[in-house]
């Protein structure tokens, strides 16, 4: 699922400077699950903005809303159609897709991102999410024992590991992170499929997805 993280308040305030009426919009799906842009976070950010503006003496009126899924046009229109008329600018707490969906629909009003969309990942512990997939469009998990080197190896090597691995099989870039290739080695070893790692792999086709990507499924 898409993981995102809220921008520092300072950065958000700079974006909003000059605008008096703001609509803060949350999203109920991915960013709720990763505690970044759900209804609760909308409340917290709105409180912070109101507190900050009252301390700095400039008045700021805030409307709050939360869309079921900010990447669905119908849901955005249904939830925001009326509220958008009453504000000068929209602060979206959805992922990058949400921000742009709103921007496409309400083109006359500026839309600002309150979050930084970071990666596709999974929960590792309470409140901790870890990147697992980079959406490269050419999945090779079948020969890496289900561990993606493109994203989880800092250099994205296909014939790893690099010479810089740290003691204990940690990554050169971050001593806290495991070297993906050591993990791949251990798992393939456990499955008795180490021949897969011995094999030479051609340079990757980095244009498997012609960016920006577009998929047209056969209509059902």
């Amino acid at each position: 699922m898409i993981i995102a993280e809220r921008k520092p308040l300072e950065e958000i305030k700079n974006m909003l400077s000059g605008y008096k009426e703001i609509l803060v919009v949350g999203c109920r799906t991915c960013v709720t699950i990763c505690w970044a842009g759900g209804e609760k976070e909308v409340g917290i950010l709105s409180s912070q903005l109101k507190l900050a503006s009252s301390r700095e003496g400039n008045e700021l009126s805030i409307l709050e809303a939360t869309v079921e899924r900010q990447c669905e046009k119908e849901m955005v229109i249904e939830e925001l159609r009326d509220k958008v008329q009453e504000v000068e600018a929209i602060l979206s707490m959805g992922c990058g897709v949400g921000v742009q969906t709103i921007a496409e629909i309400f083109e006359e009003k500026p839309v600002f991102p309150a979050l930084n969309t970071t990666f596709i990942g999974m929960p590792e512990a309470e409140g901790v999410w870890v990147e697992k997939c980079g959406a490269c469009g050419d999945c090779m998990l079948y020969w890496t024992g289900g561990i993606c080197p493109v994203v989880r190896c800092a250099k994205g090597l296909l014939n790893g590991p690099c010479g810089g691995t740290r003691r204990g099989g940690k990554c050169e870039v971050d001593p806290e992170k495991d070297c993906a290739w050591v993990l791949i080695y251990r798992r393939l070893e456990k499955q008795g499929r180490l021949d897969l790692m011995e094999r030479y792999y051609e340079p990757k086709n980095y244009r498997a997805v012609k960016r920006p990507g577009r998929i047209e499924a056969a209509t059902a």
Partner: protein
Amino acid sequence: MNRDDSKIVAFCCEHSAYQAANKAGRMRLHYPDNVRIIRVPCAGRVDVQHILKAFEKGAAGVLVMGCQEGACQHLTGNTRARERVKYTDSLLKEVGIDGSRVRMVNLGPDMGQQFVAEVKEMAEKIEGEMRR
């Protein structure tokens, strides 16, 4: 909540801090009267938003008062409350309210004196701020 009479909002867990406040009353231990106690079933019920809303409505300080470490009826209520207070403090710093105007306090049900001491400490901190 208007600005001048600087209120302190105290979220008190009904198992411990709320009883401590009653104990202080029964012992006639007087403390500043700008405290407003809000009874909650557990300190873990207090949400970051409640604290921010209190400040938004003009509170000068907020106390989240729960059971002592390891004595929480709901095991993790007080530890979670402490985490949330720490997080809220960082949110307030972002806004420019620092000087830890939100505090987590661990009390036993009969710690009347400590309750009063905590309230006085927060009141003095706010008083100091107001005068500057």
